[in-house]
Each structure stands twice: as structure tokens, then as C-alpha cells.
């Protein structure tokens, strides 16, 4: 174990896999000498050289599109999109090419590639540099969606994403990059599709991921002081989703709250709510609740951005209203 920030853990995940497999390479805007817009790729250019860590032009479509071709031709690209907000510039390459190639070809292709991209608000970066939009990716059969909330998960899920033979969208949260935690050294893999119970509890199930998982955990501590013992589940990967773990928890608690930073309408909380309102209906003793961003673009001014973001307080309030 070693103390690392989330950013260092992501980097270590890439490093170990790049050491392990010469076919893994990294391409994106300013990922080389500069070390990435948020410093996540850091020293990888120095460690692996210009063949394996490549700067690209500002050309999101070909960043993702070239990765599809390179993956089909036998490599394992990690393509960085500087902000998840820019995915609108390469959705065709992701959803019509990467995601569908295997199926369209009758199973006769493999497209092992990772699209790494940071999400999230909280830094005053306004409407086009602060979004969360994971539900789009979860609506695309053929790709997997990963959203780690801790340094250890960040490393282990990065390894799993790189080793996976399918396209994986790996979304890192900007607010977590500087958060530290214990991380296993060397090879370390957290399997995709395995939720993690970050806190056990019996009174209510809270499902949250990425930055919101940290907020949910903090809220749960405060709720405990108020006598409400929340179970906090981090699915870690939205696709594949470990729905069994969620259903099991709801069968115990009877109550479900889902927290995410995406806007509410058609966010992934809706999918989880729908699953539980179907398969876990009999367990429920209260309406399923969601704490999410409102259906607005993300405002610049910190006062407004704070009002926009789900918070510990909003989670606590929502939980209390369920009792």
C-alpha cells in the first residue's frame, strides 16, 4: 500500500499496464511533455517516450476514431479527451464505431480501447467544462462505463479497463484528482461490474458514484449521528452494473436514494430507480428518491454553481424526508 492521490493512482494504473503490455499506448491533447491538462499523465512521456505517449491536434473525432482502428488492428489505445464535455465532438466514433464494431462484424473484431476523460463541476468552469453525462454512455450497448470514487478504485479500474477487450469510457472526476488514499502497489485490478459497499447500514440504501460517493459517505456519517444508519453503495462501474448488490441492499433497508451529479432528467439514477421499481418493488417501503443536479446548464458564478451541485446537506435533507 502506498499513499497516492487519485490522479497519481490513475497514472500508476496506466504505468503498470504499459509496462506489462507493449501494445498499450496513450494519445490525447497535451498528454505528453505537458503531462495533461490536469497533470494526470504527468511523467509518463518521460517514462515511455514519444512512441507510446503522443500529443494529438485538437481533433476529438480522430482521437477516438483512430483508437478504434488501432484497437481493431491489435493495439490497446488509451485515448484522452480533455473534458467529458468535449465528447459531443466524437460521439459518432464512440457510439457508431467503437461500440458497434464487434457486433456488426458478427463477433469477428475486438476493440480494446479506453477513453479517459475528466468530468464534473465545482471549479467555476461554467457550462461547457463542468458536465457529468455518464448516462449517455450507459445508453450505448457495446461499451462499458467506469467512474471511480477513490484512489484505489481509480487504479484498479484503470487496469481492468485497459485489459478489457471492449471499449471502455473511464471517467475521472476533477474534484477527486487531488484526493489521497491507500493504493496497492504493482499490478492491481478491480473487476468491472462489481459494486463496493463503501459503508454498511440497515436503514436506507444510498447509491452514489464518483465525487458524489464521497458526499454520500460524508452525509451518511452525519445521518448516523442522527440515528439513521445508511448503507452506501458505490457501483464503481455503471456498465456493467452490479444490480444484484443494489437489490440486496434495498431488500434489507426498504428505502433507496440515488445521488448523482448529472442533471436529473434521464440521468443514470433513473435507470437504477427503474430497475428497483421493477425487480425490487416488493422490498420498497417508501418512494425512490433522487438527489441530482437540476435540469439546467451549469452556471459560472460560484454562488449559482454551489446551488447547482448536490451536497451533503441536500442528501441529508432528502434522507430525512424519507423517514
Amino acid at each position, binding site marked *: 500500500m502506498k499513499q497516492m492521490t487519485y490522479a497519481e493512482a490513475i497514472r500508476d494504473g496506466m504505468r503498470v499496464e504499459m509496462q506489462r503490455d507493449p501494445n498499450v499506448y496513450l494519445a490525447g491533447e497535451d498528454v505528453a511533455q505537458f503531462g495533461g491538462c490536469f497533470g494526470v499523465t504527468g511523467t509518463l512521456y518521460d517514462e515511455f517516450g514519444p512512441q507510446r505517449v503522443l500529443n494529438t491536434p485538437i481533433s476529438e473525432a480522430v482521437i477516438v476514431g483512430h483508437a478504434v482502428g488501432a484497437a*481493431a488492428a491489435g*493495439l490497446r489505445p488509451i485515448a484522452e479527451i480533455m473534458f467529458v464535455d468535449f465528447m459531443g465532438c466524437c460521439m459518432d466514433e464512440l457510439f457508431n464505431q467503437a461500440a458497434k464494431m464487434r457486433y456488426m462484424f458478427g463477433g469477428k473484431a475486438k476493440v480494446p480501447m479506453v477513453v479517459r476523460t475528466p468530468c464534473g463541476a465545482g471549479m467555476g468552469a461554467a457550462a461547457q467544462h463542468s458536465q457529468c453525462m455518464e448516462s449517455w454512455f450507459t445508453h450505448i450497448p457495446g461499451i462499458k462505463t467506469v467512474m471511480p470514487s477513490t484512489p484505489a478504485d481509480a487504479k484498479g479500474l484503470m487496469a481492468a479497463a485497459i485489459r478489457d477487450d471492449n471499449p471502455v469510457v473511464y471517467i475521472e472526476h476533477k474534484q477527486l484528482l487531488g484526493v489521497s488514499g491507500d493504493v496497492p502497489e504493482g499490478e492491481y485490478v478491480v473487476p468491472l461490474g462489481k459494486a463496493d459497499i463503501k459503508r454498511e447500514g440497515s436503514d436506507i440504501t444510498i447509491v452514489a458514484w464518483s465525487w458524489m460517493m464521497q458526499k454520500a459517505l460524508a452525509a451518511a456519517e452525519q445521518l448516523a449521528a442522527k440515528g439513521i444508519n445508511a448503507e452506501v453503495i458505490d457501483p464503481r462501474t455503471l456498465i456493467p452494473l452490479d444490480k444484484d448488490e443494489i437489490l440486496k441492499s434495498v431488500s434489507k433497508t426498504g428505502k433507496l436514494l440515488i445521488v448523482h451529479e448529472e442533471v436529473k432528467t434521464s440521468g443514470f439514477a433513473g435507470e437504477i430507480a427503474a430497475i428497483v421499481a421493477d425487480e425490487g418493488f416488493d422490498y420498497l417501503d417508501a418512494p425512490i428518491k433522487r438527489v441530482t443536479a437540476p435540469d439546467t446548464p451549469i452556471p459560472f458564478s460560484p454562488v449559482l454553481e454551489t446551488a447547482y451541485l448536490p451536497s451533503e446537506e441536500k442528501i441529508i435533507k432528502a434522507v430525512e424526508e424519507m423517514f
Partner: protein
Amino acid sequence: MDLKKEQLLDIYKKMCTIRAFESKIVEIFAAGKIPGFVHLYLGEEAVATGVCANLETKDFIASTHRGHGHLIAKGGDLKSMMAEVFGRTTGYCKGKGGSMHIADVDLGILGANGIVGAGMPIATGAAFACKYKNNGAVAVAFFGDGASDRATFHEALNLASTWKLPVVFLCENNGWAISNSQKTHQNITDISDRASGYGIPGVSVDGNDVIAVYEAAGAAIERARKGDGPTLVECKTWRHRGHFEGDPGAYKDPKDQEEWLKKDPIPRLEKNLLKLNYAVQADLDKIKADTEADIEEAVKFAESSPLPDPQELFTDVYAD
């Protein structure tokens, strides 16, 4: 021309095979035997054939919605192709892809594609893999005049040039993007003029002259193999049919159509072969008949192949 007799006869045979394949599809589509969209390569046979005559199995191509010709030229199996067009389990994609998604990754065929322009980034990536592995292979991206207006054209050519990748951007300018003639969708005559914007060579050739195509593509492919980076090659050609089967192509001026039919690449090559004394008419007739027989066999194979089991719907979404 450094093409030997055998090579040129092979090229002729490939062109006849494409012609026979596509002509058969006209027939079976009209008979209602195949669903969906089919875009035929009739009239453009010289392009795919001339280009792919320069390629080896290890090389990659990315094709288009009008892909049958490219796939045959790159060595695609006729039976597996036909069965795919028919949506059968024995098809290249087990019936999941259809005409617009036929692929054979083992032969370096990275798929036909339903998205105009999508092949260019994919070929660029395959070329990156060739360079990364340093295996001497190259990639060719086929695309149309219409596709040369898409986002992906620009980003792919720029990246390929900046990274000096072994890829050839092969534009099939058949004068039309569905109903839009070239001059209504772009303000240039030679698409190869776009090359200079990326610092790469651009060349335009008569796409109905298979030897000219062979040579121009050959030079570009050699350049790529040597590590000198991408080239934009434009082949001027014409599609004989409508955009897809079912489109009567009423937007075409009949005079243009007539002119271009006179430039049909197959009779043109025939004349050449006879003039060079590489063949007598009977040889050519025999080749044609052989290819037609091959296609008949492919159709028989397809029609007698089983339809997919509905459970197949759920497989191949993810590799495990």
C-alpha cells in the same frame, strides 16, 4: 506500366467479379430477396481493383457504404459476402451486419461503414498500428467526394500527416453525393487540391483507367511503406446506378450518364488487353463466364444457408 500479363489478367478478373456480383444484386434486390439499403459499385470497379492490386494481406482497408467492390478487391470471400447480404448465419457477420457492415479483419478489411467518412479515422488508426508495430504494412481509406466534406476527412488527414502515418486517402469522386453533384457540395474541382492544406501530396487520376489507378495508388502506397507519410489520391469515376437500389437517379443528366457509360472501365481494359496481346476475346469471355458462375454459386450458397437463430441477437455485444 510495370504490370505483367498475369497481374493484368488478375485485375481484369477481379473487375469482372465485382461487376458480376453487383449485377446479381440488382437482380435479387429487385426480386425483393434482400432487405435494407444496398449501394452498388457498378462502374467504379477500376478504383478498388487498381488500388488493392498494390496491397498485401497484412495491409488494411477501411471501406464505405458502397463497399462490395473494395471487399472483393481486397480478397473477400464471395460466398461469405453474399450470405451476409442475404442475412444468413454463414455470412461474414453471421447476418448481423448486412451489406453496409461486411468486414474481414483477418484480411485487413476493417469494414464497410454506414457512416459517411467514418473510415478515415479508422484507417488512420490502423496505419498507426502498422507504424507502431513497424511491420511494413499500410492502410487505405476509401471514401467518396461527398465524404471529403466531412469532419473526419479533415481531422484524419491532419493527424496522419502530423504523425507521418502509412496511410493512403483514396477518394472515389463519382461526381455525386446522393442527389448532390460535386459542384453543389463543394467549390473545387479536384479534391486532391485539399492535400496541400495538410502538407501532403495530392494527385488526381482517371478512375476508370485501372492502370492509371494502379500506378497512382501504387506510388502513394510505396511512399507510405517507406515511411514518408500519407497521400491523397483522387480517382474520378461515375456510378452507373442510383445512389442505392431503388433510386432511379433522376437527378443525373442522361447525356452525362451516356458519356460515362462509354468510359466504362471494363471494356476499356478489355481493349487494352487485346491490344497488348495479353488475351484474345475468347479468353476474356471465359473469364467473365467464370466470374458469373462464381457468383451463381455464391448466391446458391447464400440462399441455402440457414437464417440466424433469434437468440443470436444477444451474442457478440461484448467480447469477454
